[in-house]
């Protein structure tokens, strides 16, 4: 019991540190002095979203110890809702800062190569939220495959979007967080795939 608890503490501490480091480093960015509060909030909403995207696959694949599957799933669902909020804050804050740039992005005519990745990830996230709301009415397989496919698009879209941008995030911590987000998502999807195959070998 004692061993398990300390392992849990280490895991929680590690995950929290990995999520917090890029946010703390971004808070020291020199760019912030030339930005107003709305623009800064828009940037940090996105950084928080990227950090939370690391927690999502860890929660759902049972990688966080001392958290029952039920609790983990509920937290995963709750964070999903928060993610929608952060993306709305991100886009809304940028819209207030420079409306024509955001209109170009949403209409897929922006000159910046990274924006299309962000927009695709945004719509996939909104679609996931909608799918989650409709979940009681749809078949389990549709939900599973739908959520998995959308999650894949969200992860890839977000990571490419973040890596191509020159912004408040410090490069090394941003790259590290992006790599971890991809690895965590890949592991969760692989585990899910394995578990399903084990459960229903007849269907293969």
């Amino acid at each position, binding site marked *: 019991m004692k061993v398990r608890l300390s392992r849990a503490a280490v895991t929680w501490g590690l995950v929290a540190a990995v999520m917090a480091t890029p946010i703390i480093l971004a808070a020291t960015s020199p760019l912030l002095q030339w930005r107003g509060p709305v623009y800064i909030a828009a940037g940090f909403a996105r950084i928080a979203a990227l950090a939370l995207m690391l927690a999502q696959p860890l929660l759902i694949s049972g990688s966080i110890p001392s958290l029952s599957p039920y609790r983990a799933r509920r937290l995963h669902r709750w964070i999903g809702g928060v993610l929608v909020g952060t993306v709305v804050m991100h886009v809304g804050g940028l819209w207030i*800062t*420079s409306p*024509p740039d955001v209109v170009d992005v949403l209409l897929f005519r922006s*000159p910046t190569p990274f924006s299309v990745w962000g927009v695709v990830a945004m719509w996939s996230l909104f679609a996931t939220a909608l799918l989650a709301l409709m979940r009681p009415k749809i078949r389990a397989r549709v939900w599973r495959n739908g959520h998995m496919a959308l999650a894949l698009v969200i992860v890839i879209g977000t990571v490419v979007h973040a890596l191509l941008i*020159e*912004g408040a995030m410090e490069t090394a911590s941003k790259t590290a967080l992006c790599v971890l987000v991809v690895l965590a998502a890949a592991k969760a999807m692989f585990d899910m795939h394995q578990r399903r195959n084990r459960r229903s070998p007849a269907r293969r």
Partner: protein
Amino acid sequence: MTGFVFDRRTLLAGGGAALAAGALGIPVDAQAKSLSPTRSMRGGSNNYRAGAPIVERMGGGGFWMSGTVRRAGDGKPLEGQRIQIWAHTTEGYESDWESHGATLTDANGVFRLEMPQIVPAFGQAHGHLAYDSGDFETVFLRPVMASSRDKSLEAHFVLKPA
């Protein structure tokens, strides 16, 4: 004053034209006639404010925006053309009135305006330029800095009579 920025497009266009001219034995002034007008860039007109004043320097300065203005076809340098410049700098947003200024080209068609340091905004360190005086067709440019630590940025106009 440094020369043109040789991006892939100018290199391909220039190289292609030179090859074609060499192969066909076309005289030099006929080659120059092929100089095509600069097209507006996507997002170039974002946060544009018409009628920014001609200024000696924008804000505290320290950063140089420069370039050339030439006539489409023969490539003749255009003197006295008004070029408007704006960007997100250490002193303000693109949309702030103080972030907008204009300057005129000299006898060689060269313009050069000192302004505050451009800083990355909306993911890229970039500037905006406009030719909007009406004698030629309006052009909006949005050059991106190779590095956000650069202390200067260039943009070049080839204008077509309106």
